């Protein structure tokens, strides 16, 4: 099972922080990461490490979260290394590609940006329960109600999608086992046969998901669900810790912005 950024229970500063502040911080960090050059890269890397430390996230957990993405980062690096125009560092005989100084710099930058973005996302999801995340998202998007965006419905949709991920994975496993019991080559055999078996897996899964969606809609209706604003048991609170986090974020943002002028 994919474990990217799975929530880890805890009571650190990072865990306690209001989900809205954490989402906002992630958005600001993403913008900063995208435009970072030179010393900003060191500053942001140090900041992300500090956040991991105060959120008491173990190095092994962070490594585990980023492991599936390292391959993509390497791929991005290699692509930029070989396919960026500029001054060649040294000639490569018999090959139509060349390694340029610009390519090396760009490759390193893009891979760092990719991993830094993934890390900030992983920190958010590892320190915030899915429910708090949805609640924070709903609260942040609330002003959009003024232009008739159905914010509550979107929040319910997101939480419903998160709720059914494990159920659908279980269903996938069940269908796979049933097909294998009837001789389907899902995990072994020739590639073309495996692809065929995969199609035979996905269709029942889709049908089952649609049926579930029907049942779920009925169950929600039976419990009084109707489109429009609704309340939840979660209560977001903005206190001293949130204010501190916002001030630190503000300082980081001002440092980067002021350095541009």
């Amino acid at each position, binding site marked *: 099972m994919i474990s990217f950024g799975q929530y880890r229970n805890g009571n650190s500063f990072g865990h306690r922080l209001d989900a809205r502040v954490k989402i906002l911080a992630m958005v600001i960090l993403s913008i900063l990461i995208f435009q970072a050059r030179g010393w900003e890269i060191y500053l942001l890397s140090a900041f992300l490490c500090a956040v991991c430390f105060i959120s008491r996230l173990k190095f092994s957990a962070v490594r585990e979260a980023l492991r599936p993405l390292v391959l993509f980062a390497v791929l991005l690096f290699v692509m930029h290394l070989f396919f960026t125009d500029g001054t060649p560092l040294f000639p490569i005989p018999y090959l139509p590609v060349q390694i340029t100084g610009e390519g090396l710099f760009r490759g390193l930058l893009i891979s760092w940006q990719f991993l830094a973005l993934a890390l900030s996302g992983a920190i958010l999801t590892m320190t915030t329960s*899915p*429910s708090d995340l*949805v609640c924070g998202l709903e609260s942040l998007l609330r002003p959009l109600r003024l232009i008739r965006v159905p914010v509550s419905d979107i929040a319910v949709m997101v*939480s*419903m999608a*998160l*709720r059914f991920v*494990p*159920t659908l994975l*279980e269903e996938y496993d069940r269908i796979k086992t049933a097909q294998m019991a009837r001789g389907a080559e899902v995990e072994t055999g020739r590639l073309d046969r495996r692809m065929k078996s995969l199609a035979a897996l996905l269709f029942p899964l889709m049908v089952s998901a649609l049926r*579930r969606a029907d*049942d*779920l809609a*009925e*169950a*929600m*209706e*039976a*419990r*009084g*669900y*109707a489109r429009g*604003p*609704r*309340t*939840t*048991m*979660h*209560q977001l609170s903005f206190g001293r810790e949130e204010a501190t986090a916002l001030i630190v974020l503000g300082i980081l943002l001002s440092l980067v912005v002021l350095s541009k002028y």
Partner: protein
Amino acid sequence: MIKIQNVSYQYDGCGIEALNDISLDINAEEYVALIGPNGCGKTTLIRQLNALCRPDRGIVTVDGLDTAVAANHKEIRRAVGMLFQNPDNSIVGMTVEEDIAFGPGNLNQPPSEIRRQVSEILQSLGLQSLAGRAPHTLSGGEKRLVSLAGVLIMNPRYIAFDEPTAYLDPTGRRRVLETMGQLHRSGIGIIHITHDVNDMAKADRLLVMDKGEIIRDGNPRDVLCKMAEDQNCCMSVPPVMELIHHLNRRGWPLAPDILSVDDAVREIDRLLIGATHKEQS
């Protein structure tokens, strides 16, 4: 009281009457068992009670509120709780407590009040240890109880259970049935769809459906007794009752309305002791 008057209903494009001119009153605090072969309209009937589907012809009212009027739906859905056959598809929250909080959230209750109610319900059903668990990690019995908690938090006056003990192991089954019994004793009207002959016997009233119609309605003893006598009946009766009827046909003068093994033992004892006394005298 739930009043169903001359209700007929057809699913879109189906062409078959799922409910055919049904008239029925269900009193508050009554325990009604509903039985019938698959596809006979049992689930369609209980969906009518919660306004999940509205009659094509006829009227359904819940404590005077007409299910055909959209403005009544919120109150009707609060009054009549529904427990679906597959709890997996009716648990909407990411954790147990969030799922239970779904109903009060729809009624726009404040978060502190929702938390208070959730904690009360968890305690009353003994589910505190499951509060933070994700639904897919629960056992079948636990899922049913969590679904039930989500219904109970709305303070319903009636609850319709659609085969609540299907696929459960004996422990889960016992726990669900005990909870249903407690709810009935606390004054909640129960409508229980079941295929289990032992469950039917516990009800105050037994309804038998076939092809969209109610073909029998009455005290479980009488209804099951008539079903046992009817050689062409499509439904099975409790094995004890079947045995008594076989013995009756062979000339044993046993009371035909026996439902439990204990009663059967007592009745056979009475007969045998009576026979021994006769021989001695």
